[in-house]
């Protein structure tokens, strides 16, 4: 049994309203029975990732902070152990897979912790073969994890977790990048193996229904047990709402792609097939929300990169109305919110970050201030906050706020739901849509697609096709 008892934690740079050091959580107590899968729900910035790292002894070791309380796993006092001593006992999958990948090939990534445990090479090879088959990664065995999609990288980390086969799994927002098939697979696996596991999440996904033995919710540092019926009534965590329906698109600009072909090779594995994507027809009109769905590695982000002008297609046309767009014109007309928000956030405060692009538009100081203040309110952002200390979900909100200020005609949002509650994701997309932008949302969450999108495109077997209206 995992027992978290009276745990309190504070970061030195995390301040409350009074400007003093404030506990991220205080006197937190949670028990996870042996073989139990516990869902731990909390909004972004509540401390889920921090708690995951405390359990795996990454915090406060690699990040400073003040910790009090106890974590017991069976008879073992986890907080008195070194992180490397926990490798055979606890495996943690972080929200951002980029932070955990170390090796140059998928096979080496799986082998590394097994080598640390002193497992013989024959057994390592057997486990590698097994998990590559289980997680359908055999075709990328010698490919660098960097060349994989976000969802594939998460699968690599889950395959590593599976290969170590520790008795306790800590999964931090692990479902965000996974498509529906793999979300269900992970849920099945947790139930079949009867792993003691804590799944940290910002929202209650449809795939979670009736799968967890217990659900706890943390808000403002207080943890309580909730049931699914209560969660379904919660606008913050439940994923359904009325679709805005048809939008009048008369007289508005229409972005379209036709007969496009995109291709790029994998540099680390010559034998692997180059990635190919075909788009016969795709369009979005201003004020419209279009969802782009597809399995992990299908090419959603690749298509987004082409649309916003970062890459060029081998053939085909990208146009607004009847005017073909060069890459430079696409950059000026289409905003793209990267899957990883860290790439686009670099200034010391939220206020600086938001005003950066507006100032570059040549606006006056007061106009910049007013606009920034309004957008910060719309996206629930604290103007004085330090972006590098914000949670993943809060950074995604900041990204959306920046895109809103850019006033582009079209916006592509790559996995906006990562680390966000449904309420926040809906709110962010709605603000962009109300401003008149045509929005393409890339998501694995069918609830978001069905609640927000007027139309949906699917990527299957290298082809982008519109899904019939339900």
């Amino acid at each position: 049994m995992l027992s978290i008892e009276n745990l309190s934690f504070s970061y030195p740079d995390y301040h409350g309203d009074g400007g003093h050091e404030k506990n991220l959580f205080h006197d937190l107590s949670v028990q996870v029975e042996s073989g139990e899968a516990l869902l731990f729900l909390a909004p972004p910035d509540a401390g889920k990732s921090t708690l995951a790292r405390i359990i795996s002894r990454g915090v406060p070791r690699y990040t400073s902070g003040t910790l009090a309380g106890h974590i017991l796993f069976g008879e073992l006092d986890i907080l008195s152990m070194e992180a490397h001593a926990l490798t055979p006992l606890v495996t943690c999958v972080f929200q951002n897979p980029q932070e955990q990948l170390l090796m140059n090939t998928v096979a080496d990534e799986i082998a590394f912790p097994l080598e640390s445990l002193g497992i013989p090479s024959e057994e390592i090879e057997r486990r590698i073969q097994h998990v590559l088959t289980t997680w359908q990664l055999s075709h990328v065995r010698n490919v660098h994890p960097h060349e994989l999609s976000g969802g594939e990288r998460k699968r690599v980390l889950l395959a590593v977790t599976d290969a170590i086969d520790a008795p306790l799994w800590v999964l931090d927002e692990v479902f965000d990048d996974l498509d529906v098939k793999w979300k269900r697979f992970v849920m099945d696996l947790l139930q079949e193996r009867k792993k003691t596991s804590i799944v940290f999440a910002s929202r209650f996904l449809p795939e979670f229904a009736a799968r967890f033995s217990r659900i706890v919710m943390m808000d403002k540092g207080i943890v309580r047990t909730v049931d699914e019926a209560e969660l379904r009534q919660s606008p913050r965590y439940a994923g359904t709402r009325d679709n805005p329906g048809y939008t009048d698109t008369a007289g508005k600009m229409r972005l379209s792609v036709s007969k496009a072909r995109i291709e790029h090779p994998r540099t680390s594995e010559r034998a692997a097939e180059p990635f190919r994507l075909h788009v016969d027809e795709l369009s979005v009109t201003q004020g419209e929300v279009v969802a782009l769905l597809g399995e992990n590695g299908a090419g959603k982000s690749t298509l987004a990169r082409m649309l916003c002008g970062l890459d060029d297609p081998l053939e085909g046309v990208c146009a607004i109305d009847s005017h073909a767009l060069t890459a430079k014109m696409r950059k000026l007309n289409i905003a793209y919110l990267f899957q990883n928000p860290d790439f686009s956030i670099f200034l010391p405060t939220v206020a600086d970050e938001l005003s950066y692009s507006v100032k570059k538009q040549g606006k006056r100081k007061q106009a910049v201030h007013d606009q920034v203040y309004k957008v910060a309110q719309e996206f629930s952002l604290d103007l004085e906050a330090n972006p590098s200390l914000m949670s993943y979900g809060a950074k995604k909100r900041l990204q959306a706020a920046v895109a809103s200020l850019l006033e582009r005609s079209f916006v592509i949002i790559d996995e906006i739901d990562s680390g966000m509650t449904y309420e926040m994701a809906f709110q962010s997309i709605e603000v962009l849509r109300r401003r008149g932008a045509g929005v393409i949302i890339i998501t694995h969450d069918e609830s978001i697609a069905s609640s927000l999108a007027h139309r949906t495109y699917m990527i299957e077997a290298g082809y982008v096709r519109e899904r019939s209206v339900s």
Partner: protein
Amino acid sequence: MISSTFVSGKGPWYVFDPRAKLILIILLCVEVFLPVPLWGIYLLFALAFVSLFQAVGLRMSFSPFKAIGLIIFIMVLFIPFTHRTGTPIIVIGKTVLATQDSLLQFATHTGRFITITYLTTLFVWTTRMNDILLTFRWFSLPYSAALVITLTFRFIPFIAETFTRIQEAHSLRQSEHSQSKGWNALFDILPTISCTLIFALKSIPHLAMSLEHRGFGSSVKRSSYRSLSRGASLFTHLLICGMIATTFALLIIL
């Protein structure tokens, strides 16, 4: 977190035992710094270039040039000014811009620099990182030291890759009014550089944390999933590499 340094390709460089390959690369790098004639340096560079071209293709084989282009440009600017002896060749008014000696020095230094760049690139691009790590360990380097070296090899391209991603993200935030040119464009790169540095610095604790989570630092004796081949093939490869290094040395000395 870490970008690849290995590039898939074909040819003998992928077949060579990494231990033999490392010894050959070190020997050739040493030979290029011996008092060899200029044509010898460029002959070795030509061999390294052709080898890289044969291994990874024409387009990739030019990319080391892009990486060192700025440094060569700085060498063009400064070497002629630091070597003032010899027959003047480029003269404006009464000012001697370059002499025969300075051009010879420039050609020598540049030749050595691009040759060792291509030789080391050839080694790193055609050898999987785990094999490099095993090679270092075969030369009796402790595991942790070998891991640090290989992580460093991988960290540099990771920073380059991050810089590109951040640059792309920033390019998407430009407006028609803010299309910078000249000096402004140079200043506009500062946020990208600062963002890359922050990203790189933040990744260091993540890297350390991940290594420890994966059992690095444990007192348990590590096993090794991969192993380098032993016996006849290593001897043959060492012999071939020794012959290449000796042939080149004799060619340029005689």
